[in-house]
């Protein structure tokens, strides 16, 4: 019960965000499924913020954590940069018309 009351705002936030997510892509035409999936893929790259946060708080003498954190930031960046660039390439083709 304690958990519920301390996290009440976050829980509201989560539930309402779920509805926003559903509403926002409610009527997407089939042509855009692939780019949209790719764009969403880039957005969950926001996990990189967590990886950076871990790195900033890591004990500077903890080499294992530094190595893992480095890897996490690297992988997160690949997700973000690759995701947005590949989506842009897909959508670029629609714009030519």
């Amino acid at each position, binding site marked *: 019960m304690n958990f519920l009351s301390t996290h009440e705002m976050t829980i509201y*936030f*989560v539930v309402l*965000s779920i509805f*926003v*997510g*559903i509403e*926002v*892509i409610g*009527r*997407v035409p*089939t042509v*855009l*499924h*692939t*780019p*949209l*999936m790719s*764009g*969403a*893929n880039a*957005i*969950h*790259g*926001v*996990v990189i*913020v*967590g*990886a*950076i*946060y*871990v*790195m*900033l*708080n890591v004990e*500077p003498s903890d080499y294992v*954590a530094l190595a*893992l*954190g*480095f890897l*996490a*930031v*690297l*992988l*997160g*960046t*690949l*997700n*973000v*940069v*690759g*995701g947005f*660039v*590949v*989506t*842009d*390439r897909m*959508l*670029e083709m*629609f714009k030519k*018309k």
Partner: protein
Amino acid sequence: MSHSIISIAYLIGSVTFVMGLKMMSNPKTARNGNLVAAAGMILAILVTILFHEREVPGFVYGLIFAAIGIGTVVGWMAAKKVQMTKMPELVSLFNGMGGACAALIGLMEYHHNLGNTGALLSIVAGLIIGSVSFSGSIIAFLKLNGTMNQPIRLPQYNSINTLLMAAVVAFGGWVVVASPDSQAILFALFGAAIVYGILFTVPIGGADMPVVISLLNSFTGLAAAFGGFLYDNKIMLTGGILVGSAGTLLTLVMCEAMNRPLSNVIFGAFGGSSAAAGSNTEKGSIKDISVSDTATLMNYSKKVVIVPGYGLAVAQAQHVIHELETILEERGVEVKYAIHPVAGRMPGHMNVLLAESNVSYDKLVEMEEINPEFSSTDVVLVVGANDVVNPAAKTDPSSPIYGMPILDVENSTHIIVNKRSMNAGYAGIDNDLFYNPKTSMLFGDAKGVLTKLVSELKTM
């Protein structure tokens, strides 16, 4: 002070994610939508690094910037260089990277939060979901690029997978409650989740990979959201949950386009019964047609409909087909493209490929609109498509694709099918359309055959 700057930047970032996704749902604004979301992401990353409250040694900043630098260059190059046909597997790979990132966060944060059940719950959930998404995406990548082209099924794989899933969840639950101070146990959980991700994906046929990628995409979103829960980080929460819910909806929409429930995709109907399906039906004979006969037939047609499939993309024949379309139009033949919702490897993939070769947008006609037009069509040219024109989807209840809406090409006067050989389609099932008396087979590599067809037409 720096705390409020971070808060405001995260708020702006969250809004750009919502707006970006919204704009990406409309062809006109889609490209800008992607850029808006990307701008929000850059802002979020910058403020996270620049406005951190604690003192951080310089070399840690060095490491962070080095990782971002390498990731940017590699990700950028990979995304710029990839061929359009290979995009789905690249998206899958990037998704796996995000999953691995979430899993690593869990591995690193665990021992800082021993005894804190709420935090451990987020950490373990992020770790498990991220790991499953990582290994599953890598398998999906291998399947799409053809390295692993046969579904691998252990005996009783559904029961094994369900049991393993229950075991991983129970293991994770125990770790949350007992919070054992042991790296080894944590790595065992990580390993178990990786194995589950592999076993979850390997039995699923290649044709269903887009659905799997979309599902794993929403998994990674969920894993990111658990990270947001752990740090009470609003932008990770919004970004993660948006992708989690939008991705789930997108997955269901894709399944709907194939007229198959999600459970059917995951618990595997494709392939299992395919050996039996079709083989017991009566086969007619196959009729060949030459390139010059095809050219003549098309030249004197009023209306030609082209049904492009993944084979067209693989052969890189999208430019030649546009040339064919142009030359036929010059001769007064009406040309349209019939686009099945799942043509290519992902919904909408074919539109992207044809747009790349300058095919006009209004010539791409979706299935519902083109189907009534086939009866007034003189020639249908099927290039590298198979399952989406397989009449078994309508007539054979034992077929694994039974119930999937297909293009009614058999209503037209002539059907010409270009294929490299008589191999079965991606779903691994035979196609009775090839034995239809109206059907003529034009064997050969799509690019070579179409090039010959174009030059033949030019001489007429």
